[in-house]
Each structure stands twice: as C-alpha cells, then as structure tokens.
C-alpha cells in the first residue's frame, strides 16, 4: 500500500487479506447504485471482530477514512468507497453465533446474509421479518447500517424494530455493547439510534435479532386493475376496513411488462396495475378475514382476481414482485431506483404527478411500490450512452424527491440517503436540524473517517458516473429495492 500512514494498517492483516491490485479493486468501486464509482486505496478482508476493531483503531490513529461493506447492494451509494481510504469487507464475518428458539433470537456477525437468518430460523418455526428484495444476498451489517425495509414494514416495521442488541466498534475505536436478549431495556435506546446510521457511527460486530413465530396461514391475492387509481382506491378500501394485511404492493404496466419478460410471470391482460394483498395469521382468523378481503377487492372493480391456491402460487406472485427491479434492466439499458414516501392518501396524486414529470422529461418511468406504507419506487429508465440522459434522469429523480417532501413524506423509506440523496437532506431538515444531526455525527466520529461523504451534503466535484447494470445484477444474482 502506498504511503507511510498505511504501513501500520498493513501490518494488521496478512498480505493475502489486503486487496490492492486494480483488478481486485474493480469489484469494490461501486455498489447497487451503479452510476457512481470510486477506487479505494485497498480493501481489507478481516476474519474476526478483533481484526475489525484493530483496523478501525488504526484508521482512527492515522486519520484514514474507511467504508464498511457487506455485499454492496446499497441503492443509495451507501458503500461507495472513499478516495484515499480503505474498504473493510465484512463478508468473512459470516457466522450465526447463536440461535435461541426459546428466546426467539439470533446473534449474528455483520456479514451474515439476511436470508440465511430466515433459513436458520425456519427450522424452528421462526421467521426473521425484514425482507428487502435483495434478501438473498444483502448482509445484516448493511441492513443495520441502512435500516432496511421490505414488503412487510407496515405490520412488522423495519430492521430497527428487530434489533435487540448490538456490539459495535465506533469510529473513535471505542467498543460498545447495547441491549441484549431482552425485548425490553432501560435507559436510552442506543440500538434504535445506531440502526440507520448509514455507517457514520462505526461498524456493527454482532447483532442480536428478534425472531417471530412464522405465521401459520397466508391468504395472498393478486388483483389486476384498468388504472393505477383503481388499484390505489382498492388499497384505501382495505385500509378503511380495519384489516391489517402483512403486505400491500402495487406494480404498474411497465413493471408488469418487465416482470413478465424476466421470470415469465403471468398477469391478467389489459391491466395498468396489479395489486398484491397478503393476509397472515392463525388459520381461524385468516379464514374469516379472507372473506372480508375478497369482498372488498371484488367491490373495487378489478379486471381479475387471483387468490393463491397453494404455497407454490403464493411464491410465484412474490417472485414476480421481488424481481421487478432487476427485470426492468431487461427493458432499459440503465435505470435509477427512487425510494420516496408520501402520505398514503396522496398516492394517487403522487403517481399522476410522476407520470406528468416523466412525460415532460421524455423518460419512461416504471412504478413498483409498497402501497400499504406509501413507499414509492419509481424506476427511471434511460440510456446512459445517450448524451445528457443520466443528467435528465437525475433531474427527474430530484423533482420526484422534492415532491415527496412537499407532500409531507420522506426522501427515503428504506434505501437511506447515502451519496445519492445527500444534497436533498436539507429539504427535510432546516439549518438548525442539520446542525443537530452533524453534532450527533461528530460525537461518534469527530474525525469524519467513518463512511464520509454519505448522508450530508458535500461541497466539491461530483463523483464519476458510470451507467449500466451492476455485474451481479446482469448475472441475475442481485436485485434492486
């Protein structure tokens, strides 16, 4: 590694666990937000929590910026490297340290993949609820850093609602343990504050996750509608009924077209929108609630209703939904995924305005969204080889974000601010509030070495842009949500 200040760092791991050659670094230059890339000085591959602690302490002593990274699926550029800094790759810290079916918890290292927790829990009839679309590849460390969501947030909350305890090394080198096996705590909610810190406080080394009993019974319905408005009205009717579905998702025509092409998902013909509603619970309750749900949906003028008749049909419905983002990659060379939130009652209005803005900018926009919690995922399609197209796509994305904030919503429901939306954070928080957030950050990281350049606006040159699918995405391994 170049430079004297890296020498102390270099000594902490054997040479074969430092990646420094250009061809080794390429894979780490970018994450799920492929429009941005930066080359780190080196990538460290620690194998234990102690090694991570020593690396962070050395970075602190030498003032070297670091970026923790799991599978690099961030859609907001959360794990984009820092120039002149190192990447700490946590994939080898991938042990499930404890799985306690009685206390219903798992203690895991940060490199454990989300779906592996679910798999391990499943053997005991338990479930890890947060289910981002990238769950087959994204890691718990990244989920904690960005407070990841998924399709079941309305009922079960986000990652932070499932983190019971944390062991972490802060950017100052301090090691902390917060919370533990109990679902209750006294004193301030440190785990709550740490979750969603976007890597700006430090690195989680051990995470205690709550597990839930698997729902006994599901009732999943796919309903097709002639217009997006009708699908939105159906969501309002379900909400007004007092039912609490586990998930309510909408896909628009362009997203349906993409999913149909990618996984041969079969949707009712002639539909501008498809709504997926899922009930879950003890069989006695679901048997009664499903009659009400079916009646509400039947009264919402669907073109067609398809209740899943068995587990296979349910899986097929979800497969089409969860692949939607990467599927869009098949109908457009490039796309940007947005993650704004609007009050649910303004969904219809928000979608109409997105259609108008998309028409004005001359770019197509596919919509996939968590209708139950007003979380929109507009996918802006563009061709990066066309001069100015990326800039137009980014401008459209910015207009959509500002609209969400104006409507009383949020810049991000689950992807985080990262690099992508950092210039927009002051739209949500005034100067004094921004100052408060910065003071909190400075308490954890006075040197600004832990994932700098994320969340807060940065003056200076924009990062390099590169259009195109992430290599993992092109291979169908990674999907964006």
């Amino acid at each position, binding site marked *: 590694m170049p430079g004297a200040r890296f020498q102390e760092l270099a000594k902490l791991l054997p040479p074969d666990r430092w990646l420094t050659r250009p061809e080794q670094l390429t894979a780490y230059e970018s994450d799920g937000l492929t429009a941005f890339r930066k080359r780190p000085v080196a990538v460290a591959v620690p194998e234990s929590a102690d090694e991570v602690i020593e690396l962070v302490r050395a970075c602190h002593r030498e003032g070297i910026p670091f970026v923790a990274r799991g599978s690099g699926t961030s859609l907001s550029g959360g794990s984009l490297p820092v120039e002149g800094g190192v990447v700490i790759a946590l994939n080898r810290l991938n042990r499930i340290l404890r799985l306690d079916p009685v206390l219903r918890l798992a203690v895991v290292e940060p490199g454990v993949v989300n779906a592996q927790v679910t798999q391990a829990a499943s053997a005991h009839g338990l479930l890890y609820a947060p289910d981002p679309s990238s769950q087959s590849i994204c890691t718990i460390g990244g989920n904690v850093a960005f407070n990841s969501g998924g399709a079941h947030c309305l009922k079960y909350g986000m990652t932070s609602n499932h983190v019971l305890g944390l062991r972490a090394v802060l950017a100052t080198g301090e090691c*902390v343990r917060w919370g533990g096996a109990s*679902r*209750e705590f006294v004193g301030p909610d440190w785990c709550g504050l740490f979750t969603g810190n976007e890597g700006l406080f430090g690195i989680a080394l051990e995470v205690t996750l709550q597990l839930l009993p698997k729902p006994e019974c599901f009732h999943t319905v796919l309903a097709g509608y002639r217009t997006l408005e009708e699908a939105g009205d159906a969501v309002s009717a379900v909400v007004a009924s*007092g039912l609490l579905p586990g998930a309510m998702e909408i896909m628009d025509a362009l997203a349906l077209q993409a999913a149909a092409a990618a996984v041969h998902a079969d949707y009712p013909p002639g539909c501008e929108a498809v709504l997926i509603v899922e009930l879950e619970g003890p069989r006695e309750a679901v048997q009664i609630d499903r009659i009400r749900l079916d009646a509400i949906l039947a009264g919402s003028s669907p073109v067609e209703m398809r209740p899943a008749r068995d587990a296979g049909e349910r899986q097929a419905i979800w497969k089409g939904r969860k692949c939607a983002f990467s599927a869009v990659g098949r109908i457009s060379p490039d796309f940007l995924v947005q993650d704004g939130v609007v009050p649910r009652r303004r969904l219809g209005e928000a979608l109409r305005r997105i259609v108008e803005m998309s028409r004005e900018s001359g770019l197509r926009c596919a919509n996939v969204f968590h209708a139950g919690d007003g979380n929109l995922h507009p996918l802006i399609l563009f061709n990066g080889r066309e001069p100015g197209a990326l800039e137009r796509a980014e401008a459209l994305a910015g207009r959509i974000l500002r609209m969400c904030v104006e409507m009383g919503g949020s810049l991000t429901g689950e992807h985080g*601010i990262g690099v992508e939306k950092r210039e927009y954070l002051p739209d*949500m928080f005034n100067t004094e509030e921004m100052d408060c957030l910065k003071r909190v950050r400075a308490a954890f990281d006075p040197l600004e070495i832990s994932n700098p350049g994320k969340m807060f606006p940065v003056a200076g040159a924009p990062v390099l842009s590169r259009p195109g699918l992430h290599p993992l995405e092109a291979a169908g391994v990674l999907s964006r949500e």
Partner: protein
Amino acid sequence: MSAPLEPSTLDELAEAVRSAPRVIPVGSRTHPRLSQVDAVPIGTGRLRGLVEYEPSEYTFTALAGTPVREIKQALGDRGQYLPFDPMLGESGATLGGTVASGLSGPGRFRFGGVRDFILGVRFVDGAGRLLRMGGKVVKNAAGFDLPKFFVGSLGRWGVLAEVTFKVFPKPAASRTLRLDVEGMEGAVRWLREASVNRWELEAVDVVPGGDGVVMRVGGPDAALEPLVEDILGHWPGEVLSATDADVLWGDLAEFRWAHVGGGLLKVPLTLDGMVALDQGLKAAGDVRVHYSGGGNVAYVSMAAGMDRGAFEAVLKAQGLTGLALRGDGPLWWGQRAVTGIEPTLKAALDPESRFPGMED
C-alpha cells in the same frame, strides 16, 4: 423543588428551557422518581391536544403534554389503537412522559413497544432550539433515528414538544384467559410455549402473586372461540368476562397492585432468568412482581422501608439493571454499563448541561 414552569406554546417552551441553568421536563409525574432531581421542572400539561390525526394514514401527531387517555379515546373512536398498551393512562400519564420513560404495557408482546411505534419528535434541545426529527409517515429512513433515542431518555436529552406515532386498526374483538399454573416454573413453561405458538397472542403476563398467567388474544370475533378452545386444550384455565378482563388489564396498567408508598422498579430480563430472579427477590423481602411482555420485563414493587442492599445484591448477582419509577432510592439499581459515547453525545445535544445527566 421549585414551582414548575408551565409553558403553553412551543415558543414559551423554548423560552422556559433558556430561563434556568438546570431544568427537567415533567408530565403528570406518574413515575415521580424519574424527574426527582435538583432542577426547575418544566411542566408540559398546557401543551395539550391532537395536532394531526388522519386515520387512513395510521398516524397521529400530538403535543407532548396530551394525556394518553385522550389519545386512546380519539383513536378508539376511529377503531384504532396504540398496540403497546401505554401504561398509567388512567393516572394521567402524558404522551411525552410515555416516550421519555420508555414504558410499554402488556400489548408490547405482539408488535413491540413505544420504540416500535414512534415516528417523529419535535423537541427543545439544551440550547433552546426547537427541532424536528424523524417524520410523519409510517416509513422513513432519512437522518439519524433520534425519535427512538428519546424513548427512555428520561428528559435528559431535551424536552419533547410534539410526538408522532404509528397506530394500528384495533382487532374487532379480544378474549382474556387466566391459566392455572403451578409456581413460577409452571408459569415459565407456559410462557415458553406461548412465545413460539401459532396463536399470535397480544399479551402474556404473570400477574403479581406469581401463580397466575394471563393472556389476551385478539382478532375477528368468530375466530376467537376456536382459538381459545385450542389454547385451553393445551393448558387448563378460564376465559374472563369482559368486565373482569378490563379490571385485570387496568390494574396492571396502573400499577394498582403495587405497595402504597413503596419503591417500584422496571427490570428488563429474559424468560431464562425469571425463576432465579423471582426466588432471589422473594428471599430478599416483601416484594410483589408483575412479569410482562412474555417474560421480557419485571415490574418489582417493594414495601416502604425495605432493606435496599438485599435487592441490589439480587440484581447485581444476576447481571440485571433496574430503573426506579417510584420511591426514594437511587434511580439505577444493579449493574448499569455506561459507554464513553454517552456523555459525549449528551454534550452534543445539551452543551451547557441544562438538562440533568442519566446518572443525576
């Protein structure tokens, strides 16, 4: 203690913080030990009322001094509720106090506690600035999650002005069961089963006295009969009448079972530690304990004038921490680990130490 300042607008609240070198927010003092410090109290009682409530959004925003009882009424009128069963509502607890104390009731078993339903806060920091953090929509990941950090903050980070919560539709009906168990071992066996079973219980508690497990199940009315039958097939017990159920949950929420004039502690724990804690506490003196949240928390009431040392020793021996809600003893009992970041972060939010510290 000085007479409380009683601001009636948010500007006056900010002014109140700046008016004295040391201040402490108080609601209706339903957990008096938490604010029993040498500081000028800032009462939030005049900051009262719903600011926004849109049932279709599953959210509401209210001023911090709004009584929980009023909120429950307003939500109930629209078929909604706070699933974590806020405590001490009939005793006058405020929303701000509910957040700052971090107390959740028996219903936290199903969907989580105060921390899992708070979405946003407005607060006045130590420099007298009125700041908004979090959001008003059910899903939001922008900025650090300071709203959660106010849960259990005991008024030490600042004074809450306004809070936004997520709410859920209230199940159409519910049933409360009391099960026959033998001793604490029997209760723990039942809690273990209830915790992983398919029934999706709303609450599973062990009532003070030690040999009664009570639980609540909610859902569509017609589903509850077969569910209850299934549960009672596993374990003998009885279904309480609606009136008896209301009295039972009301007594638990208001701590009516606790000693008059004694101490009251909140002690987080796990199912694994229940039997040992129970034995230890009972050997130490005249105590009554309510185990709540499926065995994740114990509320321990001690008779006035009890020997503190013996209780302290039990908690320490089991590595547990207690927070005193009532009584004249220390605020923290047993082992409380303080990390180095805590005073640093406190200074970031309150540079002039206008609010007391966690240890004061």
